[in-house]
C-alpha cells in the first residue's frame, strides 16, 4: 500500500463519522429529541450521535438495575380494599412491614451498612418486626446481596440514583421511614419480579389450604 493511504483512509472514517452525526438531524428535522428516536440511537443497531444530554435526557434503567435498597411494606387498606393515603406524608399509610428483622441482610452486607433494631414485646421478648432500620447509603456499595438473600421479599434494590446532598451525616443515613416504600412502588419498578413473587406466594397459599 502506498505510503499515506492508511492516514487518508483514517481521515475518511472520521469524516464519515462526523457526517453520520448529522444524518438524524436531517432525517427527523426538528424532531430529533423525542423518546422514540432517542432509544433508537441508543440501541445496538443505532448509529450517529451517541451522547446523552444528561440531565435533560436520561437513559431508562433496566429492571435489574440496582441502587440503594428500600423496604417493602403492605399498605393499610380501607373497607373497600383500597390503600389509605396518609394525609401528612401523602404516601400510602403503612399497614404491615414485610421485614421480620431476621438480620440476614445485615449479615450478608459486605460493607456492613445495614443496622437493624429488632422490636420487643412489652415483656421484653423479641418480636419479628424491625423497631428501626438504618442504611448508611454512603457506605452501601449497591451489590444487591440484601435483596438477593432476603427470604421474605421485603428488601429490594431501588432505581433512583440521584441522591446527591450537601451533607452526609443526617440526610444520607436512611431510617425506616425514608426506606419504606409501598408494594405498589415495588410492582412498578420491578414488574417481572413482582409477577413471579406474587405467583409464588399464591402457590404457597394454595398449598396451605
Amino acid at each position, binding site marked *: 500500500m502506498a505510503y499515506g493511504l492508511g492516514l487518508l483512509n483514517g481521515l475518511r472514517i472520521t469524516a464519515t463519522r462526523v457526517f453520520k452525526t448529522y444524518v438524524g438531524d436531517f432525517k427527523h428535522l426538528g424532531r430529533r429529541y423525542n423518546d422514540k428516536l432517542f432509544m433508537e440511537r441508543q440501541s445496538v443497531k443505532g448509529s450517529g450521535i*451517541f451522547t446523552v444530554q444528561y440531565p435533560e435526557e436520561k437513559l431508562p434503567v*433496566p429492571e435489574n438495575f*440496582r441502587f440503594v435498597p428500600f423496604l417493602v411494606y403492605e399498605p393499610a387498606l380501607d373497607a373497600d380494599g383500597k390503600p389509605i393515603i396518609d394525609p401528612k406524608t401523602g404516601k400510602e399509610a403503612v399497614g404491615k412491614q414485610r421485614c421480620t428483622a431476621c438480620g440476614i441482610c445485615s449479615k450478608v452486607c459486605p460493607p456492613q451498612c445495614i443496622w437493624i433494631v429488632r422490636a420487643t414485646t412489652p415483656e421484653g421478648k423479641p418480636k419479628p418486626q424491625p423497631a428501626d432500620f438504618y442504611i448508611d447509603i454512603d457506605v452501601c456499595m449497591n451489590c444487591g446481596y440484601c435483596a438477593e438473600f432476603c427470604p421474605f421479599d421485603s428488601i429490594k434494590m431501588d432505581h433512583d440514583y440521584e441522591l446527591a446532598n450537601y451533607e452526609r451525616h443526617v440526610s444520607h443515613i436512611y431510617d425506616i421511614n425514608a426506606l419504606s416504600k409501598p408494594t405498589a412502588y415495588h410492582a412498578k419498578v420491578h414488574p417481572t419480579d413482582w409477577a413471579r413473587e406474587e405467583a409464588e406466594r399464591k402457590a404457597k397459599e394454595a398449598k396451605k389450604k
Partner: protein
Amino acid sequence: MSVIVPTASPETKINLNDPQVVAEQIKMAQPDAVESVSAQGIVVKNDKLLDVARYLHDLLAFDYLNNVTSVDWQDRFEVVYNLTCLARGGAPLTLKVNAARENPTVPSLVPVYRGADFQEREVYDLMGIRFAGHPNLRRILLWDGFAGHPLRKDYREPYYEEEKKPFGSRWDQGHHVIAEDRNPWHDNVQYPANFDAIAYKPPRDQIQAISIEEATAARIHTDKIVLNFGPQHPSTHGVLRLRVTLEGEIVRGVEPILGYLHRNHDKIGERNTYLGNVPYTDRLDYFTAMANNLAYVLTVEKLMGVKPPERAEYIRVIMAELTRWQNHASALGFIYNDLGAFYTPLIYALEERELILDLFEATAGSRMMCNYMRFGGVARDVTDDFIEKCKYLVNERLPRRTDELEAYMVKNELFTARAKNIGILPRDKAINFSTAGPVLRASGVKYDVRRAEPYSIYDRFDFEIPTGTVGDLYDRFVVRVAEMRQSLKILKQALEQIPSGDTMTGKKNYQIRVPKGEIYGRGENPKGELGFYIVSDGTPNPYRYNVRAPSFINLTALNDMCVGYKIADMIVILGSIDIVMGEVDR
C-alpha cells in the same frame, strides 16, 4: 542488572508439574534443602532458598515467577512463591519458606527473578518480612512514616470494629453510629516511635539532587533533572506518580511511586466473608469487573469442589470475553490519547463499550460493578433478549468495529512511525520480569492461562494466542487488536453452543462453607494473569486472601522499557502496559 536465561530445555521426560517429583530433583542437587513436601507445595529451608530457586530456574526451566505472597501463621511467617515453566504450562509449582516471628528475614529472589522486585517490596511493606539482598527494599504501597505492617494478624486499622464480619453491632440492637464519630480524625494516624512527621523528609527525595552551589563549585555541567510526573496528571491513568530522571528529553530512569489509591484490599478481604469479597473484586480492575469475578469465584470453587451447571459456564465465558473486547477497545483508545490524538479514537471505542455495558446492566444490575458471579453459578439467568442483542453485536457490529478500528488506528502511517521500535521489551526480560497478558505475548511468548491451564470451559473453544515479534509498542497494540478478534471468535462459538438449563448448582446460600486448605487460582484477565491465593481455615472468612494484580507486576518492567527513549514515548509506553490504578494500588 542483566537477566539470566535458563540453560535447560523445558522438555523433560519426568512430570515436573508434580511437586513430589520436583522435590526429588531438588533433593538430588541440594540434599538438605527440602524440609517437607505435600500437595500444598514444597517447603524449603530459609538459607537454601536462593540456591533452590537458581536450580529450579536454570536447570528445571521454571522461568516465570507468578506470585510472591506471605501468610502470618501467628507463630511464624511463611512466604509463598508460585513458579511456572511457560513452555510446559500447567498448574504452578508452590514453593514455601518459613521465617521466624521475631525479625523475619528471607533471601531475596531478585537476583534470579526480577519480577520479584515489587512483589517482595509489597510483602515487606504489608507483612514486615525483610528480604536480604533486595536492591531497593522500601515500602511500596504505604508511605515511609506508616507505623506497623497491616497484614499481620495483630494489626488493627483505625476504624477497627471486630476481627471478622458480620459485626455484632449491626443486628438485634443496631443503633447507627458513624465510624468517624467513634474514632475522630486526630486519633486516626499512627506514627512509628520517635517519628517526627513535620520534620520528616523521605530518603528518596534526596537522591540525585544536586544543589546549584555544588554544581557551580564543581563546575559540573549537567542537564540531569528529576521530574515528578503525576500523581495528578491526565496521562498517568489515575493517581500514579513516576519519578523520572531526565537528561534533556531522554529518560534515564523511571521509578513508579504507588499507593495513592491503596485501601488494603487483602486485609478487607480477610475481614469479609467469602461471598462478601465478590463485589470487592469488581473494584480491583474496574474495567474488567466480570473477569475479576470469574477468577475469584473459580479459585474458591476449586477449594469448595463445586462445579457450576453448563449454562452458567457458557454465560461466564460470554461475559468474560465481552469484557476483554471492551477493555482492549478502550485501552487502544487510551494509547491514542497518550499519543496526542485527543479523545476522538477513545470516544469511538467507548461507543461499543457502552452497548456492552448496557447488556451487563440489564443482566447483572450494574454497568461496571457487576457482582455477577456466585460460587456454583451466576446471580441470575440471561434473557432471550440478551442473547439476541449479544448475537447481533458479536456477529455484526463488533467485527465491523474491529475492522474499522484497525483501519484508522493500526494502518495509520503516523502511528506506525511513532510506535515501531519504541519501548522494546525483549522476550527474556518479559519473562524474567513476570509480565503477563498482552505485554508478555507482544514480546513473543505464546502463553495464555486459558490454554496453559484451561479453566472453566475454555478447552472447548477454538482460538489462537496472538503473539508479537519485537516486543515494542506497536506489537503490544497489534496483539490487543488480534486478541479482540479471538474474543469474538470464542463469543461466536459460545453463543451458538449455549445450552438451556439451570444457572446455579444447589440452592443459593449466603453462608458458604469452604473446607480447610490453601489454593492459588488464576484467570487470564484482559490485563494479564489475575491470581488469588486463598488460605481457608474452615471458618466463614478467609484466613489469608491475596491478589496477584497483573497491572502492578507489569509495572516492574516499566523502567527497563523506558530508559533511553524520550519522555513523550514514556507516556505511551505506560499507556501500552494498560494499567488501572484500582488494581495496582489495591
